[in-house]
């Protein structure tokens, strides 16, 4: 089956390994990701913090393209993009005055407006569907035995409620998926705390504090690595582990699935990490 795909800026740059792994895992499950042509950046925090119109119009433009491409579903692996595009979709369906205005403007710019026919989704939500999760078990050739993980959802995957496909305060999807892949999943209290990603450049000092708290909490829970579903969380956690005595790797959930599927490209993804995960994986004979 073919699904519309919106990688977002980071999957073409800072999170290239997430892009590769997601594609590989989806293919293994019989899914094809069809990248949206000429998509644009969703505007991220800079958009919604400074301009109400941009905050809607930028994500909406992508939905107009998705409709023109006759995509029924659009998969967004970046939690920030997912959150903004899902929000724009939500406001259009609700018919708020701001959404109607943005839609009218897009009609005059693009020739068509968004009609609210696309299901905006995240790879984690797709994989958790019955028809695909049932295939995961059969694909696991190299169970992630001994890999002690803290699943980290961050903020934008489950909040606000209209974007949530899992419990807002206690999401479980990644926990379940990683258990299915054979990992030793730890319980901890910080799985939905924000990583501070949007402040990582202008307020690095604050972000160092946040990541220190997160990583030490994961370590206290007994984890040797963190697993995420967002390129901004992954990047922030990997690059801001200052003052941590023993920095720990931060994986994307599709990378770990790929490893458990014994995907031949998995080593390539690992080489892109800033905190080298290869020693940990080889010590567990997973690579």
């Amino acid at each position, binding site marked *: 089956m073919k699904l519309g795909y919106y990688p977002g800026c980071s999957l073409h740059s800072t999170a290239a390994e997430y892009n590769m792994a997601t594609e590989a895992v989806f293919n293994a499950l019989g899914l094809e990701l069809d990248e949206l042509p000429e998509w644009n950046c969703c505007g991220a925090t*800079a958009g919604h913090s400074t301009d109400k119109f941009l905050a809607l119009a930028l994500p909406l433009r992508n939905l107009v393209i998705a409709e023109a491409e006759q995509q029924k579903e659009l998969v967004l692996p970046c939690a920030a993009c997912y959150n903004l595009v899902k929000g724009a979709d939500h406001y259009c369906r609700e018919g708020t005055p701001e959404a109607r205005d943005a839609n009218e403007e897009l009609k005059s710019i693009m020739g068509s407006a968004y009609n609210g026919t696309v299901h905006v989704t995240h790879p984690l939500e797709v994989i958790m569907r019955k028809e695909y999760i049932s295939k995961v078990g059969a694909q696991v050739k190299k169970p992630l035995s001994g890999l002690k993980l803290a699943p980290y959802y961050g903020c934008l995957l489950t909040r606000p409620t209209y974007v949530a496909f899992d419990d807002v305060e206690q999401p479980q999807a990644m926990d379940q998926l990683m258990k299915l892949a054979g990992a030793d999943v730890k319980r901890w209290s910080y799985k939905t705390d*924000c990583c*501070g990603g949007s402040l990582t450049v202008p307020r690095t000092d604050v972000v160092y504090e946040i990541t220190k708290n997160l990583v030490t909490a994961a370590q206290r829970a007994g984890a040797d690595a963190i697993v995420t579903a967002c390129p901004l969380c992954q990047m922030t956690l990997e690059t801001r582990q200052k003052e941590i005595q023993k920095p720990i790797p931060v994986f994307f959930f599709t990378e770990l699935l790929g490893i458990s599927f014994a995907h031949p490209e998995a080593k390539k993804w690992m080489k892109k990490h800033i905190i080298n995960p290869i020693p940990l994986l080889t010590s567990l004979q997973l690579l």
Partner: protein
Amino acid sequence: MKCAGGCPINFVMEHNNYEILRMIQLGEKDKVYQSNTPWLCVGCKTCAVRCPNGIDTSKVMDTIKMETIAENKIPASHYNVKLFYELFLDSMKGFPVIGGEGRGYELGLMGLYKLCTGTYLADMNLGKEMTKRGKMPFLPHNALKRRKGEVKKIFQRAKEKKAR
């Protein structure tokens, strides 16, 4: 308070998120503008999902940021956050000669931010490591071909709306 209790940034905020709401009720506009709270809010929406009154406090923070910018009352200590937002959006509009309409351009953004703030050394090593791993493309993406100019027009409309 469930909202501020879950706020991941409250440890550096001058005022808790609910205190800002109270200041708004009391009409203490200048106090709100001076506070570092909106500029540290990361929009994680923990407060929004927990508020028993259905208030999306993080949206209020966004509105405060917009108004502070519009009224030109932004305190110098928060200037870098605003600058980063602006450059981020600028980098999507494309650059003269090298182009790149519609998508983020990390290298250009970081270069400009460093030029504007004089923080040349911060993250230098990280930038090098990212480039080595092919995670920081040298040139911006020239992704809009058939639909060229659409994103620029969206920005143009945004500007017109603000001027109104």
